[in-house]
């Protein structure tokens, strides 16, 4: 098998007349930490939506671990080992934190649509859920309704739900958006921990986070890749500097 | 042949009546995302009000006053009820309008009683407009066509040619954007809701003496109107128009067709004996299933083309 976890070949997406993504080619190697940056409106979230199956491609191909996924519905892509978080926190707000995580674990633990299995008696499942809670530092909030958590805690839960299923490729869409400095540092630590051994692709605006975590950076402007490579190379790239002036100098 | 022509005309009249009701509902639904279950109830109120007003002042004043009253009622419902329900979520709004159906229904019974009202066609319009094949075509029906066509034209002008209309149109297909542009969307909402109710009231005024004015009218018209709205699609008055005429025609024509599924297969030499469910299913004449057809159509279109005929947004 290839050692490319995720591969985009000539991916394009248009909404009516508006061409959002134009012929993007991208390869993410297994175990890589890959950041996608770019100005607002460049199409980063759209790209994520295309990869995760939320939107359909206008043209091109997407391969996950060597298999084509571009016309599959999101839940099938998820079962093949790709998971994502959302820019706008997307959790089950009327369920407790514990329940949220447990739901994220169910499919990967083989429970399917069972309506006869009593959840409270599944020791292995419940213990694993508690273990993840510990990792996320949310154990003290175990029985709180997810909708009542603080913003940073909700983001942590979101990340937790994304990795709980054991996906090998993780997409994080602006995980530290709206966080204070301390919260951001905690989040980065968390991300570093939970993405060990997995392939990570993230969209970020916070350059400090990007340079902290990423092995490879891709710059997306107006739906096109204008640069891709190790952080230092990208930083020095004149085209990037021109498009993204000032932000990288920081 | 005469049946076809007569049915065609009657279907048109009924279709236009449906359109008056459905257009108000489409506007409300497209813009506010709320399915106003009580829309047919407002129609009923319009009919009853027209009856009462015409007892004192005659039919033509009622034609003007009743819709205005219905519009005011609609504004009141929106401001004091719907807006508050909106805070509690989408389903709460649906439930609210659903609850209104009960209250309005029973209130009408309380105020006017349970018997049908003798709401008659006004003397002035009670003559045959023309006769053909020995059947009269009442002038009143011509009047109904006139009013509904006039209303369609007026609405079209309002929406396409005035500023308010432009804002409403924008809100029909892109509500968030319209709001983001700084328009007083809550007030536009109230306006649209009140307008929709006024239209329903107008439909009630002219429909009440075409059909019977009795407490069950809302339940009779309600479901069909929903079908029309869904069928025609969100965000499109033209789709609503086509759907109304289509439904009107289907219902009118179905009643006169006495064929059944068995008649379709008879030429193949198939006969059915025995008295069981299957036989019954095959021998039921289309005339009797007429009532079913709109719902079958609605289900089909929701399954295969949820946007409806010409909708611009998904339901």
């Amino acid at each position: 098998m290839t050692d490319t976890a995720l591969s985009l070949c000539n991916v394009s997406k248009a909404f009516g007349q508006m061409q959002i993504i134009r012929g993007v080619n991208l390869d993410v190697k297994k175990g890589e930490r890959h950041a996608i940056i770019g100005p607002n409106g460049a199409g980063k979230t759209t790209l994520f939506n295309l990869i995760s199956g939320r939107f359909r491609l206008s043209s091109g191909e997407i391969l996950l671990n060597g298999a084509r996924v571009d016309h599959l519905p999101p839940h099938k892509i998820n079962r093949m080992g790709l998971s994502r978080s959302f820019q706008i926190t997307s959790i089950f707000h009327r369920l407790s934190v514990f329940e949220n995580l447990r739901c994220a674990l169910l499919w990967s633990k083989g429970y399917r649509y069972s309506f006869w299995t009593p959840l409270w008696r599944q020791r292995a499942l419940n213990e694993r859920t508690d273990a993840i809670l510990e990792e996320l530092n949310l154990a003290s909030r175990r029985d709180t309704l997810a909708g009542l958590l603080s913003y940073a805690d909700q983001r942590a839960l979101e990340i937790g739900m994304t990795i709980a299923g054991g996906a090998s490729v993780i997409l994080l869409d602006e995980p530290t958006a709206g966080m204070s400095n301390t919260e951001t540092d905690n989040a980065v630590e968390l991300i570093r921990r939970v993405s060990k051994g997995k392939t990570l692709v993230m969209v970020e605006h916070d350059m400090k986070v990007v340079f902290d975590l990423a092995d490879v950076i891709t710059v997306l402007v107006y739906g096109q890749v204008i640069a891709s490579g190790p952080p230092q190379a990208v930083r020095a790239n004149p085209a990037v500097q021109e498009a993204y002036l000032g932000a990288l100098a920081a | 042949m005469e049946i076809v022509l007569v049915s065609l005309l009657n279907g048109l009249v009924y279709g236009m009546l449906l359109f008056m009701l459905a257009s108000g509902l489409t506007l409300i639904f497209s813009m506010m995302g709320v399915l106003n279950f009580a829309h047919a109830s407002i129609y009923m109120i319009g009919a009853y009000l027209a009856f009462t007003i015409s007892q004192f002042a005659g039919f033509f004043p009622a034609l003007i006053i009743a819709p205005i009253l219905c519009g005011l009622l609609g504004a009141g419902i929106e401001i004091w009820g719907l807006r508050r329900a909106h805070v509690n979520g989408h389903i709460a709004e649906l439930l609210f309008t659903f609850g209104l159906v009960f209250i309005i229904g029973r209130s009408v019974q309380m105020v006017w009683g349970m018997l049908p009202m003798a709401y008659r066609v006004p003397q002035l319009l009670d003559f045959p407009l023309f006769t053909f094949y020995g059947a009269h075509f009442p002038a009143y029906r011509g009047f109904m066509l006139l009013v509904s066509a006039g209303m369609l034209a007026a609405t079209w002008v309002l929406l396409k040619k005035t500023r308010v209309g432009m804002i409403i149109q924008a809100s029909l297909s892109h509500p968030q954007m319209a709001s983001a542009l700084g328009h007083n969307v809550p007030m536009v909402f109230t306006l649209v809701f009140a307008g929709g109710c006024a239209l329903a009231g107008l439909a009630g005024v002219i429909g009440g003496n075409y059909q019977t004015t009795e407490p069950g009218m809302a339940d009779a018209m309600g479901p069909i109107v929903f079908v029309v709205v869904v069928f025609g699609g969100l965000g499109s008055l033209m789709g609503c128009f086509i759907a109304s005429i289509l439904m009107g025609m289907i219902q009118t024509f179905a009643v006169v067709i006495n064929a059944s599924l068995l008649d379709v297969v008879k030429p193949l030499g198939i006969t059915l004996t025995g008295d069981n469910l299957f036989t019954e299913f095959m021998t039921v004449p289309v005339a009797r299933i007429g009532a079913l057809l709109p719902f079958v159509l609605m289900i089909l279109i929701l399954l295969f083309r949820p946007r409806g005929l010409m909708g611009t947004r998904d339901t």
Partner: protein
Amino acid sequence: MLIVAIAMPWAFYNYHTGRQSGFVVSMLSQMGMMTILALSYNMLLGQAGLFSLCHATFFGIGGYATIHFLTLAGDGSLPLPLELFPLLAGLSGLGLAIVFGYMATKQRATAFAMITLGIGELMTTAALMFHHFFGGEGGVNSNRMIGHSLFGFKYGASIQVYYLIVAWTVISALAMLYLTRTPLGRMANASRDNFERVQFVGYDPRMVRFLQFMLSGFFAGIGGGLYAITYEIVTFDALAAPLSANALLMAYIGGTSAFGGPILGAVLITLLQSGVSLMSNSWLVYVGALFISMVIFAPNGIMGLIAAHDPIVRGGQFGRLLVPYAKVLLPGLIMVLGFIGLVELASFLTIGAAQGKTLVLFGTRIDDHAPLPWLSAGLCLVGGGLWFGSEARSFRRVWQGLMGELQPKRSLA
């Protein structure tokens, strides 16, 4: 609760006739069936976020099927004990729910509601049309004394049928409760909260809803089976829109967020229906007004209101609410009385007059053409309403104060 259910009829033992009060047994039987209906409806509304308008269809099909099965059992072709008939009814409901559920769950939210509306109307019209299965307007009937029983009961007396109902209601309720603690149940909740997230944890939300719809139809069918056994006749009312609306009402007023909410709602509504409709023609107006007030002010139903007190009770501060409650109660009562007064006056003016009845209050006839009763009722409504409004505002201040005090204590725990 179970003990109450079993003991209730004995509380109304009528020593004259040596039997339990027929009225009470009948009402309690109704409560049992409605409980199953409301609980199964809440599997959709409260637990899966599905607003269905055709729920009675599955109840009704269960009823119709049971009648036919009873007839078959009666002439010997179906040797099954009566106790198991509700199960057959449930399976009928399940079968229909599979067909309709497949169609309806293809869509979400409003489109889903519209499809169910169409299905409901379709079935009602079909029930009137196809005489063979549905018996047209007169319905179908049968005899429940088929001579087969697991426990040797004859089921002639309604008290025996009542205990059968209690048994099945308990079984169904427990089953539905169990369901909420299974993977499907939890994912149904999840799909209510966030449809998209469900996809991104590996589940097909459409499948989750489809299964939930199927199971909900199964339980509704059981209720219909009990209905058929009790009344021995089923007409199109058993699947018509008013019954679906009833299910919605019961689940919502009781409270959709708590499991026991629909049970409370079913009991309450049945009580009101039996009791109030005896006294007044206009009980629909009251229910409608109650429903609308709840939609606006208490969207989580009665159970929700009770649950909202939880932090205050736990913090031991309930005593501080007693006086504000008392202050709110009196004007509230006056306002409600005024409303009832107006409604009753209006009702008697038109409907009552047609029926030859007049309004009698405390033994004195009230002339509804005179202005005085109208004025006093109107005054009560308006005056009471204004007073209530101001008391309610100060109540809210006390409430918010209490919640604010208790808040920091909670997060430290």
